[in-house]
């Protein structure tokens, strides 16, 4: 099944995700301010809404500077990689019945593949900047993403076992009676943590860690090239929220309201949750991060997979 209106779906998803990513900058600053008991941007336009527009105009007119010591070609290509890979992932996200760009048979694997490509953006940006702090950020990103990707994939295999398919539409349809968050609660928690690590948001923002690495991998970036990393990060948050909604919370399924509204409500809830996480949690040390990943999360994900497999097998026979 492909969408009846492919071009419309592509344009719609592109416009909505990019607008949402820009809007999230405002939403995040306002919500963070609310939770930290301050005002946030409230001067430009009603509720400070036009602040986003002002920031955009400013960032587009900034000097597009490439440091003379940088590896020019790689330096220019790196910010594009993250935006391209995340937008590619949205191609297989089923927003509502019929609103999907490509209903790929291995949709879930495709998303995992694209998210594993995203790490190159950060690693190559760190390397090509030819700057100690940027390089350290890039090395950290490589180690962090590699360790958290392993159990990110494993934590989802329980859902795949229950639904019997990699296809995201089929996974949503399999949740008509029961959302997968109930039988796969451990998988959900593991994926939430891995997802936060994939987007490099605050508890896991060690590649940029302002207080120790200046700005890590994007220390040398300015203007719209820096903006691309920023947009890529917010697109990543939207993508992970969409995936959690689809895989564990029944996607567009819900009573009374039209499917697309349910989908948006659920996605916005998880976006707000990611922002709350940033407001509430401190940043761990790097060795703590790595040992959690390999010594706690990975065994838990493997155990989850083993138990789910055994239960599914026993249920069928």
């Amino acid at each position: 099944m492909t969408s009846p209106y492919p071009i419309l779906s592509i344009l719609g998803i592109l416009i909505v995700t990019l607008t949402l990513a820009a809007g999230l900058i405002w939403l995040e600053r306002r919500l963070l301010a609310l939770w930290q008991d301050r005002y946030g941007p409230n001067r430009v336009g009603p509720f400070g809404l036009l602040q986003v527009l002002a920031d955009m105009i400013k960032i587009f007119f900034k000097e597009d500077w490439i440091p003379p010591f940088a590896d020019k070609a790689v330096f220019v290509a790196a910010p594009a990689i993250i935006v391209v890979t995340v937008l590619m992932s949205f191609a297989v996200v089923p927003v509502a019945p019929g609103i999907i760009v490509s209903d790929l048979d291995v949709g879930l694997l495709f998303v995992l593949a694209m998210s594993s490509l995203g790490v190159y953006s950060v690693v190559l940006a760190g390397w090509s900047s030819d700057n100690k702090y940027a390089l350290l950020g890039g090395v950290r990103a490589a180690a962090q993403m590699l360790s958290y990707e392993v159990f990110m994939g494993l934590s989802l295999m329980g859902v795949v076992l229950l639904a019997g398919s990699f296809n995201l539409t089929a996974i949503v349809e399999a949740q008509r009676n029961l959302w997968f968050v109930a039988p796969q609660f451990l998988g959900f928690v593991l994926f939430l943590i891995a997802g936060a690590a994939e987007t490099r948001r605050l508890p896991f923002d060690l590649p940029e860690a302002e207080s120790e690495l200046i700005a890590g991998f994007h220390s040398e970036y300015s203007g719209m090239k820096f903006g691309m990393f920023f947009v890529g990060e917010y697109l990543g948050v939207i993508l992970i929220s969409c995936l959690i909604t689809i895989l564990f919370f029944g996607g567009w399924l819900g009573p009374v309201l039209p499917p697309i509204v349910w989908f948006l409500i659920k996605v916005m809830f998880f976006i707000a949750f990611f922002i709350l996480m940033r407001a509430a949690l401190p940043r761990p040390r790097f060795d703590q991060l790595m040992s959690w990943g390999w010594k706690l999360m990975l065994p838990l994900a493997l155990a989850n997979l083993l138990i789910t497999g055994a239960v599914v097998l026993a249920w069928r026979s």
Partner: protein
Amino acid sequence: MPIDPLFFWAFAALTLGGALLTITLRSAVHCAIALIASLAGVAGLYLLQKAEFLFAVQIVLYIGGIMVLFLFVIMLVNLDAAARERQFHKRWWAGLAATLATGALLIYYLAKGASGLRAAPMPAQPAGNTEQLSDLLFSEYLLPFELVSLLLLVAIVGSVIMAKKRIV
């Protein structure tokens, strides 16, 4: 088989061009990027053959896993000194012989045409072959599959022993 020839040539050019650049470029990171492009081309070729599962696994494992590790090591180690060293190993003739032998084998079979190669029967349902693949992997080819994983286990244990040599 209905393969869009334009895509085939594009991916083939990406694969071969990337491979050539991998062995000719000077900077180690540039070589790694060229190798990534080459592997991505192979993934595209898999997709053209409707092997969607292989396509995804190729990207997740080779591009998203192994090449990230390559880059990680390249960034950790200072390769400037290594780049100035002699680029040819003493036993370069062995590599040359192996390459020529493989090339001769390929040319022999290509010249013989399609009749020389035993083609696998086309599955009844071309789309959605992930289940068929796993069925075969865990029934008919179970022993080779498990043997390969044993090989990987040996490699893991070996690398741990090598890394911990000074500590133990």
